[in-house]
């Protein structure tokens, strides 16, 4: 009988702990709704954010609600595919190797952000040549 | 035998027990036995191995139902009773000392003795009290918290007896209780049972051990052979 009593006492104790955890979650959830949620909504509204920043490997995981309807296989190199093909075919090294990315561009030059004057002063960056240069290094057939 | 007016505790009427009825390996263990058990007597059922002693004891003790025939405990017909009612009669009337003891080896002596009391309405202090008395009368106090599998054969035997006595039965049924005991322990066991009998408990032995058969407390002998009674003696 003492064993039964011990069990019942411990069981009740467990339930009380569980119950207070549930109570705590309710409290926290209400607190979040009251304190954090309005701010989060304001932020999402200010920046027009429409998706959770949970998975960054592909568009359909980073922006599930915005992704193309048809193409599951998207946006490598971040995402080696989950689907069977992805375990066999990996993204081209051209896409992932830092050296080839820099080499394919404007020679690793730095520019200052934004300053429109500077930008216009370097028209070649946005000219078709640049596109062509990048294009040819990734093996595209046509260049203007 | 006491006054004829007193009705027998158990009456067995033309009982048979057939195992695997209708199958090719059918065994007719009891083949038409009638007998009674009277209050206060010490009855010995004697017979060679395989003669049907244990089968007859289980029928008397309401542990199995006969294939045919009637068993009456007091004035209640066993065949008419539900399982629950039968179980409670068994619990209240009979204490069994099994041929192979049937203790649960990894329970303590105390828990083993308490087994028959768990499914009763008895309060816990009452239970403890009963168990204490039974354990003390068997002089296994010092082993009460030991596991039943770890005590000596004689202590196990006494634990089994304590368990049979804990519900204060009117009839104690002992199936070959001395089969595994040396003569010293047998003598001790018979002394214990003799004392119980003096206190009014009815005892039924099944045995072919002359030490039991020739013991002075025995008041009646039935000899069973091939499932029928071949000889009755009352000294």
């Amino acid at each position, binding site marked *: 009988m003492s064993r039964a009593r011990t069990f019942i006492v411990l069981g009740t104790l467990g339930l009380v702990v569980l119950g207070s955890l549930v109570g705590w979650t309710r409290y926290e959830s209400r607190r979040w709704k009251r304190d954090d949620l309005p701010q989060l909504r304001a932020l999402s509204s200010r920046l027009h954010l429409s998706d959770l920043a949970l998975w960054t490997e592909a568009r359909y995981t980073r922006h599930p609600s915005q992704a193309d309807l048809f193409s599951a296989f998207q946006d490598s190199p*971040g995402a080696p595919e989950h689907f069977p093909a992805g375990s066999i075919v990996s993204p081209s090294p051209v896409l992932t190797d830092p050296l080839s990315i820099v080499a394919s561009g404007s020679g690793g*030059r730095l520019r200052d952000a934004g300053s429109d004057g500077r930008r216009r002063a370097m028209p070649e960056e946005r000219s078709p040549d640049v596109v062509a240069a990048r294009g040819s290094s990734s093996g595209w057939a046509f260049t203007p | 035998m006491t006054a004829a007016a007193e009705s027998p505790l158990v009456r067995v009427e033309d009982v048979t027990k057939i195992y695997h009825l209708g199958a090719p390996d059918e065994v007719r263990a009891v083949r038409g036995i009638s007998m009674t058990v009277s209050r206060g007597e010490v009855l010995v059922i004697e017979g060679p191995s395989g003669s049907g002693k244990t089968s007859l004891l289980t029928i008397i003790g309401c542990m199995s139902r006969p294939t045919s025939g009637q068993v009456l405990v007091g004035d209640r017909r066993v065949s008419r009773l539900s399982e629950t009612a039968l179980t409670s009669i068994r619990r209240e009337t009979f204490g069994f000392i099994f041929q192979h003891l049937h203790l649960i080896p990894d329970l303590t002596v105390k828990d083993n003795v308490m087994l028959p009391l768990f499914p009763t309405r008895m309060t816990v202090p009452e239970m403890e009290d009963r168990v204490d008395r039974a354990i003390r009368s068997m002089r296994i106090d010092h082993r009460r918290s030991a596991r039943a599998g770890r005590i000596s054969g004689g202590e196990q035997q006494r634990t089994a007896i304590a368990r049979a006595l804990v519900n204060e039965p009117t009839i104690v049924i002992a199936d070959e209780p001395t089969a595994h005991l040396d003569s010293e322990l047998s003598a001790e066991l018979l002394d214990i049972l003799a004392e119980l009998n003096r206190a009014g408990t009815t005892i039924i032995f099944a045995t072919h051990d002359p030490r039991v058969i020739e013991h002075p407390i025995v008041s009646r002998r039935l000899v069973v052979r091939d499932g029928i009674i071949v000889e009755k003696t009352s000294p």
Partner: protein
Amino acid sequence: MRRHLKILDFALASLQRRPFKNWAIIAVYAFTVAVVASVLFLTQSIRREAAQLFVGAPELTVQRMVGGRHVPIDIGVGETIAAFPSVVGVEPRFWGYTYDAVTESTITIMGAGPGMATIDLVEGRLPTRPTESAIGAGVAAMWGAEVGGEVILVDAATTGVLYEVVGTFESPSDILTNDLVVMTAEEAALFLGLPEGKATDLAVRVANDNEIDTIAAKVKRAFPDSRPITRSEVLRTYDAVFHWRSGMMLAVFSGGLIAFVILAWDKATGLSAEERREIGILKAVGWDTGDVLELKMWEGVVISSTSLILGLITAMVHVFVLGAPLLTPMLRGWSVLFPELHPTPHVDPYLLFAIGFLTVVPYVAATVAPSWKAAVTDPDEVVRG
């Protein structure tokens, strides 16, 4: 009542005989419950968070589709849409991705349109000049950058660009902003290489929620190559997404689950000769069938409810207090920038009930059922050694 308690007492005595075995079962069982409950708690709370959060998202997003893929849309389209009745405003969104080969992470670039620069949950402010940026916690950690520091990103023309960090997003917003680099809208367009006059898509504010679908239909009619995404579709997406993820996690653990089922099955059905003998002894000393089954039921209840309670407590602490550290590796998949999870505690009582029911009932059944046959046989079977 007293009888039931006494039988429970005996059940405990009976379980105590094999403490190692029974605690091992409880441990495995509680672990299984904890894993399943963790997955459910986590996905449920993220799902709920998303549902609550995106009430602030644009009512309508309008994309342009070409060849089944999302392409930049003419900003001019926004003017037409803004003229529709009930439309409060349209704003082009400039967003996209850049892959940082050094950290091997994909970063989301987001243009901040006109509006206040200081806002809650941003330490510092949002960028107002093209050389400025505000970054999410994940990016900040990756670059070791803070307010006043700098980040270098490679733009669409593969030129490295330097940005001053003027703001970082605070922790409660991680789930929205972890991988963001926010720039001014113009700079984002430039950085992402969007052609003049084009935006990634258009965010449309609609005054009346009931009108959203009508407006979406109108947009579709006016611009057949557009794809309007309503807010309710966003919410629906989040409902669906987690089924897939949690399904995968559960699949990983189903191995463990199956092992446990086998263990339970073996334990419960393989009523050993010893256990059968024990039931016979109980019956022989005066227990009836009901008592024996009650004993077995208590044994099942003790094991399964102990495991259930321990498992649920573990899962709650794991997910809500510790931030699900054991599930994160599985959830993060290939993501390099994965937000630290601090899911808002939320437990649906119905879910608790469902887990409890699915844990206790099958186990008790699996314990009681196999004893049935032994419990109904006459005790005389046991009498012969």
